[in-house]
């Protein structure tokens, strides 16, 4: 039976991974995400799973990909500086289409920055961090209960689309504790990768003729195939200067782009008649919701669009909002990153104004309320 528990965001993330069937974690200690690793270190061995503390962040990401190739649902958790180091192998997992989940509990940056304070300035790195064109799915929960359910969803999307999925939240929601209910097994759906049904000698690991997401064989199960970080043909072997590279890279993007409806999740709050809308995620989304309530109490028609999926970006929702609101306020714990995405999608149809803070403290509801009032 599900039961209420007081859990830290980071613990809820680990619990979500276990619920999703994760049997493999590799990580490296880093504030403010370490509790995810500690929780997995306690739980995984008891379930027969693998917990590895590797020699560095790069190694942890690589081990996760290895674990996933051998058939485990695998993930890692890190923060700012570690997330920078993950980028190399995150790109490898994208190109080789190995499912895995990377949790980034965001702190201030650049460099060592503010290890114990919240930040949101990695959000563009979540989209564009690794070199080359690539798809990105990034989920941004704001409440402890959401961290649990979005982590489950991250594993599901990763298995379904054969691509890494990032779960990005900030130090405040990672470290805070609130009440959550862990659902019974079966209450939330759990998705496993589609395996090939053809005989091994016919298996082509990157054959897109039957759809954009080819079935994936695990290593050691009789399908002996080649995985490489070079651009490759349907059989997995490198190709050089071939039109296949172009079409295959487009397919990788299409896996995400063509499935936006399945991947995207947004919370709309009091938006229907809103004159002023706030666009915010993570801790800023929580502040913004409080600010919207304060504004409504004063008779101001304010509302909130809070994406749970920041990548792919909710382009249509922001475009629609910009057509009917007078202004969109974008509070973020960076000096202006997601603000530009909102501007891009509003195309000048309404005013877009940022509220930015990077001193290690969250933006308070009163600050957002003041900007809502000014925007009228």
């Amino acid at each position, binding site marked *: 039976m599900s039961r209420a528990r007081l859990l830290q965001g980071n613990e809820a993330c680990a619990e979500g991974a276990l619920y999703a069937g994760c049997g*493999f974690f*590799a990580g490296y200690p880093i504030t403010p995400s370490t509790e995810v690793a500690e929780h997995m270190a306690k739980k995984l*061995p*008891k379930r*027969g799973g*693998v917990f*590895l503390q*590797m*020699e*560095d962040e*790069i*190694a*942890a990401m*690589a*081990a*996760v*990909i*290895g*674990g*996933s*190739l*051998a*058939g*485990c649902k*695998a993930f890692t958790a890190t923060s700012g500086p570690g997330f920078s180091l993950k980028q*190399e*192998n995150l790109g*490898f997992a994208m190109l080789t289409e190995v499912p895995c989940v990377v949790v980034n509990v965001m702190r201030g940056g650049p460099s060592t920055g503010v290890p114990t304070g919240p930040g949101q300035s990695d959000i563009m790195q979540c989209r564009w961090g690794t070199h080359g064109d690539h798809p990105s799915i990034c989920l941004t929960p704001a409440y402890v209960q959401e961290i649990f359910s979005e982590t489950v969803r991250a594993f599901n999307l990763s298995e379904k689309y054969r691509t890494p999925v990032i779960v990005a939240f900030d130090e405040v929601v990672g470290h805070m504790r609130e009440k959550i209910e862990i659902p019974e097994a079966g209450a939330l759906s759990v998705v496993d990768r589609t395996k090939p049904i053809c005989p091994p000698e016919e298996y082509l690991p990157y054959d897109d003729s039957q759809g954009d997401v080819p079935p994936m064989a695990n*290593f*050691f*199960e*009789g399908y*002996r*195939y*080649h*995985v*490489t*970080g*070079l651009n490759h043909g349907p059989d997995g*072997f*490198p190709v050089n200067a071939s039109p296949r590279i172009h079409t295959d890279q487009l397919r990788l993007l299409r896996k995400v782009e063509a499935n936006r409806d399945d991947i995207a999740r947004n919370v709309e709050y009091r938006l229907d008649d809103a004159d002023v809308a706030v666009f915010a995620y993570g801790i800023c989304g929580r502040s913004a919701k409080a600010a919207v309530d304060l504004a409504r109490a004063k008779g101001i028609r304010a509302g909130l669009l809070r994406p749970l999926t920041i990548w792919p970006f909710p382009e249509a929702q922001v475009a629609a909002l910009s057509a009917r609101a007078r202004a969109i306020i974008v509070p973020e714990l960076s000096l202006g990153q997601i603000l530009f995405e909102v501007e891009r999608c509003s195309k000048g149809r309404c005013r877009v104004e940022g509220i930015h803070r990077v001193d290690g403290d969250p933006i308070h509801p009163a600050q957002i309320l003041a900007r809502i009032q000014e925007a009228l």
Partner: protein
Amino acid sequence: MAFDYQRYIRGGKLPHIWCPGCTYGTVFKSLLRAIDAQKLDRNDIAMVSGIGCASRLPGYVDFNTLHTAHGRALVFATGLKMAKPDKHVLVVSGDGDATAIGGNHFIHACRRNIDMTLLVFNNYTYGMTGGQYSPTTPYGLSASTMPYGNVDFAFDIPSLARGAGATFVARGTAYHVPALDRLIVAAMRHKGFSVVEIMNACPTAFGKRNKFKSPTDLLLWMKESFVPVEAFEKLPPEKTQGKLPMGILHSREGAPEFCEAYFAMVERLKEKEGTGKP
């Protein structure tokens, strides 16, 4: 009867990318013979590599093969091995791949004593990118990024491996081929982390620049320079100048192996859970 290499080679994947005179093909065949000698199921073998000339080898063989990022082969391999500890994991790497960009993973795999075999193809250079100096380029020799003679000091890979805790360390060469077959078999049979440094010739990027006029000169140099360790240890100090030992340089059987230690912990925890004790 001649050895049938084709059984292990993927159809249509040859010719390989290696230059004429490169010794990787020789080592490749030695590796296939060593694997064959152990009568393993091909489905149970994973071969993992990083980036560089040697790292292309897994593409040619009919196992589960994984060609990863520069320096990272050992850590991808660690993930595979921990997920499926009963399988055989072999890692093929070069000197730059294993000891420069992958140096941290190298020493930690040694320390962890995880049951895998690492073959380091040491040709003293970054061949694929055209002959830059590597952590094993001898002092004074020339490289495209040390055109006035190398002033950087080299690693001795077996000493590094042993110092970091590897429980099996060997050195072979592309010239002493039957001995190399035996070394690879011994390394793979060893329970724990095994490292075989394999001296190789890169006539294109290293040899030409360093007065080895032909690939044969490099092989002759190997023949002269590498002495079986048993004989090497008996040489008077003045005779060891310019010589290096080859063979099994270090072996420690019975040391705790990482997968075994980890899964023994898992079993202990399961028993505890079963008895209801905290």
